[in-house]
């Protein structure tokens, strides 16, 4: 496979990682919880879309809309039922809660849809390809991923910069108590963050599922890679995460081309190297620990 081809594919899958990592970052930015259930939330939403498409036979746009509403409701509900009742949990407690949500969703999905692999298709044909520059073949799937993720990034940028709710989210992240005193309903902000990131995760999950297959464990590896992308970008900044996602996709694709055996462990190496050399990530501001 030529260099340019790897570049395009790496960028496309990287955009997918970046999109999914954004979902992780939104929650981490507002509530400082690393959501280990993110992958399974996306998996569950994708299964809901799959169910609507295959058992009710609705058109795709309808299934997509219902899934989006469902994923928002699921995100809000998980925050409301699982995280909010925990009073002053430790970091370990938070991790255990999100891991518990992960196990719960995974068990529920395997109970409902079985553990076998299903086929999930987006209404785009991945075998249609274009070759704008010689040696760089780009297929429909990559075009869809790149355009959807750039659209979402644009919306996010505007949202965080110019809307009241976006400002409230940034304020909550900086200092929760001060934000509360300023009249921001921080709990509503958390609900919103979870619903929003669940939605973005569901979109990314559909892209991942249409690229591979759909089964209750299919989001585990993409989650680790998306997290590596988030760590590359610094876990705090959304532009950083986009670049981190792109870098991660490229690193993985080139690495996988040279040593296909060891492709699955790239993410781990990236995480450890970045965290050891520059824990704040490539783009975030310097990270200072509060004592």
């Amino acid at each position, binding site marked *: 496979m030529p260099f340019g081809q790897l570049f395009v594919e790496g960028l496309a899958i990287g955009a997918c990682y970046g999109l999914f990592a954004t979902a992780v970052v939104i929650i981490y930015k507002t509530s400082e919880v690393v959501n280990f259930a993110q992958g399974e939330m996306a998996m569950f939403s994708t299964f809901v879309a799959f169910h609507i498409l295959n058992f009710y036979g609705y058109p795709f746009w309808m299934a997509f809309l219902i899934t989006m509403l469902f994923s928002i409701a699921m995100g809000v509900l998980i925050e409301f039922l699982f995280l909010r009742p925990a009073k002053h949990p430790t*970091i370990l407690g938070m991790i255990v*809660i999100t891991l518990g949500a992960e196990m719960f969703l995974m068990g529920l999905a395997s109970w409902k849809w079985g553990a076998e692999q299903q086929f999930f298709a987006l209404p785009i044909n991945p075998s249609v390809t274009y070759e704008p520059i010689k040696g760089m073949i780009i297929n429909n799937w990559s075009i869809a991923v790149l355009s959807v993720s750039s659209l979402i990034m644009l919306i996010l940028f505007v949202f965080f910069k110019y809307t009241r709710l976006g400002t409230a989210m940034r304020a909550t992240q900086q200092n929760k108590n001060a934000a509360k005193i300023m009249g921001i309903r921080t709990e509503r902000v958390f609900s919103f963050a979870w619903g929003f990131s669940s939605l973005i995760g569901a979109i990314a999950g559909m892209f991942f599922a249409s690229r591979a297959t759909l089964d209750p464990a299919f989001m585990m590896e993409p989650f680790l890679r998306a997290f590596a992308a988030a760590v590359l970008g610094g876990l705090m900044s959304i532009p950083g995460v986009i670049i981190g996602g792109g870098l991660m996709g490229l690193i993985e694709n080139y690495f996988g081309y040279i040593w296909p055996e060891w492709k699955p462990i790239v993410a781990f190496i990236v995480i450890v190297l970045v965290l*050891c050399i520059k824990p704040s990530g490539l783009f975030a501001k310097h990270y200072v620990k509060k004592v």
Partner: protein
Amino acid sequence: MDMKREYYEDVQLFKSGVVLFWSAALLLGLFTFPLYAPNYYIYLLNVIMVHVILAVGLNILVGSTGQISLGHAGFFAIGAYGTAMLMSTFHIPFVAAIIIAAFVAAFFGFILGLPALRLEGPYLAIASLGFGLTIMHIIGAMKIFGGRMGLKTPVLDLGIPQLGLSLPVTNDLQKYYLILIIAVIMVVGAVNILKTRVGRSFVAIRDSDIAAEVIGVNLTIYKTLAFAVSAFYAGIAGGLFGFILGFFDPFTFNMILSIMFLVMVVVGGLGTVSGSIMGATLITYLQYDLFKNIAEVPYFGKFMLYISDKWFTTVGLENFSSMAIGLIMIGIIIFEPLGMFGIWIRFKKYWMTWPF
């Protein structure tokens, strides 16, 4: 809760005669257990005790040192593969093989401990999770470990077969006594570690690593040591687990297993040896017995089957275990962050101060 008046009181193995009595009673019960228990429970108890060894070791890391690990299935796998390979390929006797394998696991624990010096909280959780997946992948990709086809354990022989001192351990009952003896040694070892200078350094690191450094605890040594000790326990447990299964492949040691180990520690109670024993026993029982055969539970099983038939799939009912354990994890953090040990302490306090 209880006041210590001198150093000796703090370091003694049994806090009081009552604790000594009940520990002895428990041991006696465990040693005579096969006399009055059906054979299936021996197998279950073997798995429980292996998980107890692991949970006690993991608790030294998570509960006492405050470092999060989601990669203990990796050390578990190193122990299992190491012991089996050393015995079948290099013909090393069992006792030496399991100890060497555990030291290999401890070495890998030391390696994971090095990045842990700069990581904490969620970052460390992710890094260790990646470590566990990496170990699983490396084992699966290499031919000498049997690849994805898995590995069959050799005959468990306590003696040295080359010298004609053969002492084969074949059935579950004999394995039971072997594992019980090792488990008792490991648990007593853990209790002792926590009462020494090393254990107190671990606790100091958990409470505040900066304060610990200020009072002269060498963070580099003690953090990596905590990982190494914990990995050593996981290695021993893994070596025994391989023999219980008889056959294993890399996917036995997946990420869910690491999560289950963490759940045992959290459900049992962080930082206590007795808590990890309780947690490992409860979670293993639920996972291997109650939730696995949920359809056979009276009344409730029928109800679950009815629900599965109506809205879900009957084949997928076995996944109820994963769901229920997920809910237990969430519930324990929300309602009882101290775990089963916390429930025990509350019960004890209520009892001691009754009727006030």
